[in-house]
């Protein structure tokens, strides 16, 4: 049986006017624990034997899905004529001999059992079937390819309605709506704790710790399971990545920074001596999930984009390489004793080095016993000393 898939990735509907998006890309294209929901969906479709997949996106697709391109996967981008192109793609599939088309609109990520969906569709002799999750519709359809008019009415209404009544298929597996930072974070946790079918990308170097090729950990950096470090990501000395955190590809975490229960999206740079906890960081935007606030931080010393250009990376690496030996020789001849690296506990207690002259304040953990003595109007107790 010739079964094909049409995957739709939209941006426009996702960005609300009053909210700051974490990334300009739609959530379906954001790489979480090594792969985007789109890549994971494509992997699953291929595993179910659906080889001919057409992906239509109204935003520029990142390079990785392109690298992942297999036979029969075509990527097209259009913003204005999105639905018309989708309709045309469906017609093309039908003309090329497809019998069934799986129409998947990637707003959320669902691990649907496509085999059961197709079987149920055929058993009911339906023209169109839609997936439901907990009595709510999911934008995943199974459409008989010969029913072009039904597909057209569905696509013209932007998947809101169809000209005929159609049966529902109850999905009991994994589903994440991917509506903003909180869902994105939950998605990373679910992948790292193996609640999803698709495992984390890369190699499991220790139980619960996944790393992709080219990931670099400097001396003293710690990765505590479960965690993920993406391709060419760099953790500098005394950086700590813990509690289901993921540092995506080409990101950098500077000296002594703690990444706790957070997702660092690709190409981000996190400054030195920071505490990134319960956050999703995308470039200059940080979504703090505990405070439920998204902040744009226009200070590259704190967070920002990592060096992305190949040329720029090459020049930086070459300069580092060439200056290494002269620097060591200079230190050997004129330098005093080698500066002692602070131990990890000391590094984590101090305020960030990016604070210039005010860096290095000791700030150990809170004296919770003493906190009861303070008045209820006190929002935060100062946590140094034992006052």
């Amino acid at each position, binding site marked *: 049986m010739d079964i094909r898939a049409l995957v739709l990735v939209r941006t426009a509907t996702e960005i609300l006017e009053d909210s700051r998006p974490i990334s300009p890309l739609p959530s379906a294209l954001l790489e979480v624990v090594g792969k985007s929901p789109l890549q994971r969906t494509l992997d699953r479709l291929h595993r179910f034997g659906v080889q001919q997949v057409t992906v239509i996106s109204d935003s520029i697709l990142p390079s990785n899905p392109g690298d992942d391109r297999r036979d029969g996967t075509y990527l097209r981008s259009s913003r204005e004529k999105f639905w018309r192109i989708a309709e045309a793609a469906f017609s093309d599939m039908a003309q090329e001999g497809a019998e069934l088309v799986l129409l998947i609109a990637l707003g959320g990520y669902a691990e649907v059992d496509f085999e059961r969906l197709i079987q149920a569709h055929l058993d009911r002799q339906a023209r169109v079937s839609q997936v439901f999750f907990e009595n709510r519709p999911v934008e995943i359809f199974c459409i008989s390819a010969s029913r072009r008019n039904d597909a057209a009415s569905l696509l013209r209404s932007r998947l809101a309605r169809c000209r005929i009544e159609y049966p529902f298929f109850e999905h009991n597996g994994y589903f994440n709506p991917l509506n903003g930072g909180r869902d994105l974070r939950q998605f990373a946790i679910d992948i790292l704790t193996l609640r999803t079918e698709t495992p984390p990308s890369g190699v499991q170097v220790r139980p619960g710790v996944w790393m992709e090729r080219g990931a670099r950990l400097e001396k003293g950096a710690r990765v505590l399971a479960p965690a993920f470090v993406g391709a060419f990501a760099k953790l500098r000395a005394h950086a700590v990545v813990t509690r289901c955190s993921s540092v995506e590809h080409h990101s950098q975490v500077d000296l002594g920074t703690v990444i706790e229960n957070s997702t660092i999206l690709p190409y981000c740079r996190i*400054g030195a*001596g*920071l*505490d*990134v*906890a319960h956050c999703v960081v995308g470039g200059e935007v*940080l979504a*703090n999930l505990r*405070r439920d*606030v998204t*902040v744009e*931080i*226009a*200070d590259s*010393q*704190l*967070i920002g984009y990592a060096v992305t250009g190949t040329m720029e990376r090459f020049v930086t690496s070459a300069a580092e390489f060439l200056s290494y030996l002269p620097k060591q020789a200079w230190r050997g001849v004129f330098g005093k004793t080698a500066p002692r690296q602070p131990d990890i506990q000391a590094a984590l207690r*101090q*305020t*960030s080095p*990016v*604070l*210039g*002259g*005010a860096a290095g*304040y000791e*700030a150990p953990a*809170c004296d919770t016993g003493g906190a009861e003595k303070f*008045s209820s*109007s*006190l*929002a*935060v*107790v*100062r*946590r*140094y000393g034992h006052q």
Partner: protein
Amino acid sequence: MDTNSRPVVVKRMPERLNARTSREFLQDVQPFLITDRPQLVFDMSQVKQLDAAGVEMLLRCMSEAHKRDGDLKLAGISPDAAVVLELTRAERLFEIYETSTDAVRSFSGFLPNAMRQHLLHRKHSPAPAAA
């Protein structure tokens, strides 16, 4: 505002605290910081943008106040500023209050009991009759 014997200075911070505005703000508060045992409250309710230079300035002010046996407290922190303070590990160094009034009251709240009793007694005792 005057609690107990020494005044508490409440200063409202600007909407953006970057390198330039921090320098200007520091110049503004400098006269209060160099007094004996300064008691300051920075009202951060209007702060929408805070960067590393802003946090550095706050820590500098706190350090200056401590040098002269005084204190600096923060009040009404906006969520945006709170996120940056938490990120830079500076939030655990300050006493942070919901409102400036709470912060001002807290300066009298931590007086030794004997001194507080003395002040209360002085406040409520009738004025001595003129001879």
